[in-house]
């Protein structure tokens, strides 16, 4: 395998990982604040839909290169609105968090397709739009392997990598992050110290909607170009896996997302080799999922979820 192929492999890995990084970062905000978020899949769907529709109308209005960014903004807004459904049910009305997260998935699947048909005269798919194009960073993109692999990517990929570091910093080095984590570990202690538990949790869930929305948007704006019923198909659940895999830590989740991206990318590359013809394609398709289980069994071990994860906060039980 020469360097060019290696660089391309790295590049494809990052393209596949980007959406997962955004969504799993979103999951971290929600779950660190103590609210389970099974709804990432639905939130990504909202984002992918909003990006496709927003991008389409922005393109129509002649915004050219800026149109995809309008799509991203729409995805952020719709993601937040979608996550509020989960927040109201789980935080204010103390519903079972797994259930209200599942509700998001249902509502997203139903309402996005309903609206696509409404907006585009019964079609099951949004019109094809121009998404982001890759941006080469001057100088850095000339480095062998890494230049082709990392510094010649979509703007969303750069954004995702920057956000990993920023969010790590926010979570572990700022008072806000400390409060958010406290609310997820020991809400009554945090309450005693004057932290508004429900407010922090609302913020956590809304940030998860925002980030998962961007995650969904990157899929329509860099990979598919349209939104249809199968645009997300399980990516949100894989993002949840990446979050758990990465032990609710942005750096860990980043590693896990890249790992998933890599195993998807390698699946495409293995097929280029002659020897792979003798292996049934189904076994090649299985690689990412089998690898995940093997890595989990051999390396990661017990998960370390936030202690109050899944428990509605009830001040009277303090």
């Amino acid at each position, binding site marked *: 395998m020469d360097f060019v192929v290696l660089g391309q492999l790295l590049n494809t890995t990052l393209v596949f990982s980007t959406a997962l990084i955004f969504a799993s970062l979103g999951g971290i905000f929600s779950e660190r604040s103590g609210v389970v978020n099974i709804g990432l899949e639905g939130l990504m769907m909202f984002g992918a839909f909003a990006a496709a529709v927003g991008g389409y109308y922005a393109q129509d209005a002649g915004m050219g290169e800026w149109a995809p960014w309008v799509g991203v903004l729409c995805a952020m807004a719709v993601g937040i609105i979608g996550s509020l459904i989960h927040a109201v049910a789980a935080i204010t*009305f103390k519903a079972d968090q797994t259930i209200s997260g599942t509700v998001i998935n249902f509502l997203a699947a*139903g309402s996005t*397709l309903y609206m696509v048909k*409404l907006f585009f005269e019964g079609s099951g798919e949004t019109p094809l739009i121009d998404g982001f194009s890759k941006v080469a960073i001057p100088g850095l993109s000339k480095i062998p392997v890494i230049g082709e692999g990392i510094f010649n990517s979509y703007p969303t990929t750069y954004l995702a990598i920057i956000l990993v570091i920023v969010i790590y910093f926010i979570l572990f080095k700022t008072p806000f992050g400390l409060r958010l984590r406290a609310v997820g570990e020991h809400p009554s202690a945090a309450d005693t110290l004057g932290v508004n538990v429900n407010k922090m949790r609302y913020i956590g869930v809304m940030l998860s909607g925002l980030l998962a929305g961007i995650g969904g948007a990157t899929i329509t704006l860099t990979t598919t170009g349209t939104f249809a019923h199968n645009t997300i*198909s399980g990516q949100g659940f894989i993002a949840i896996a990446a979050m758990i895999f990465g032990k609710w830590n942005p750096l860990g989740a980043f590693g896990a997302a890249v790992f998933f991206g890599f195993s998807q990318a390698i699946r495409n590359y293995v097929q280029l080799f002659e020897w792979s013809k003798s292996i049934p394609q189904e076994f090649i398709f*299985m690689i990412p999922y089998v690898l995940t289980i093997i890595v989990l*069994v051999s390396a990661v071990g017990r*998960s370390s979820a936030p202690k109050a994860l899944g428990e509605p906060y009830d001040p009277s039980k303090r």
Partner: protein
Amino acid sequence: MSRLRKIFATDVYIVPLVAILMGFLVGAIVMLFGGYDPIAAYSALFKRVFGSPYDFGEAIREMTPLMLTGLAVAFAFRSGMFNIGADGQVMIGMTAASVVGIKLGGVLPSFLLVPLAVIAAAVCGGLWAGIAGYLKAKRGINEVITTIMLNWIALFLSNYIVRTFLLLQGQNRSEDNPASLSMTFLFSTFDNARLHWGTVIALAAATFFYVYLWKTKQGYEMRAVGLNPHAAEYAGMNVGRNVVKAMFISGVFAGLAGAGEVLGVFHYQSVFAASPGYGFDGIAVALLGLTHPLGVILAAILYGTLTYGSAGMSFGADVPPELIRIVIGSIIFFIAAQGIVRWVLKPFYFKRKKEKVL
């Protein structure tokens, strides 16, 4: 009369009923926003389900796998686990039923072949779920991740087996399966709707669910583990063993759903283009049914009616059938966030209290 009032005074009945009504209301509002006529749409929906014996039979056919996957998810839930993997377990069950039915078709008489195929589906579905249970019990690995991964692996494994061993020449599906669960004696009554014994199996599974969890010592342990694994451990129960057993039983239910589809409905197995989604419907049914077996049956009836009827809705009133997912999602939302329903009902509760005082 007082007895009737007592029934309606209990939240267990009234809250879900009001939640369902509110779900329909949300659907109606969404339809109005889209410029559709909700009354025409809902009547087309129910007319589709109850309009002809054939459609009624097909609706029952639609409800059957929902019941079983709903039971699968609910059973795991009661034991403290979230089984997102019913989908994969259904596929594995289908594949096992196909392999046994087709490979032993010429060898065994049908009174042996059919039960064997059904048992194979149940056991394989159970073992597939058991992998996730085992990894959770032995290595503490979150079952949400493993069941998601196992769904994908099941999809590809099933396709591999069908493509390599069972393929009908020149087509993307298996040979015809000689084992059949069809209720042929009912076909003429329901105008050739594809009714099958899977429905009876599903009802039996629900009965087993109830008796096992609430009437046996093992079931008591399982519920204890589900409610509080640490307390159960202190009480001397083997948490790990219960986790594996609960996942196994959960997978058995899902595997049976697969057997019903292959042996009762299609009589062959296609190469899947994507995940068929039975398991995700099962999650909704389990939640709608408040993870109680009777509730799951009722929820499967509701869910089956709505999804089967949604096709009629799009024919009769031109409403996109996806709308029904909004209705179902809203119903689950209102059932989960019962506070909202109670708030809506508050004026009525108040009235009742006053009556009591008088």
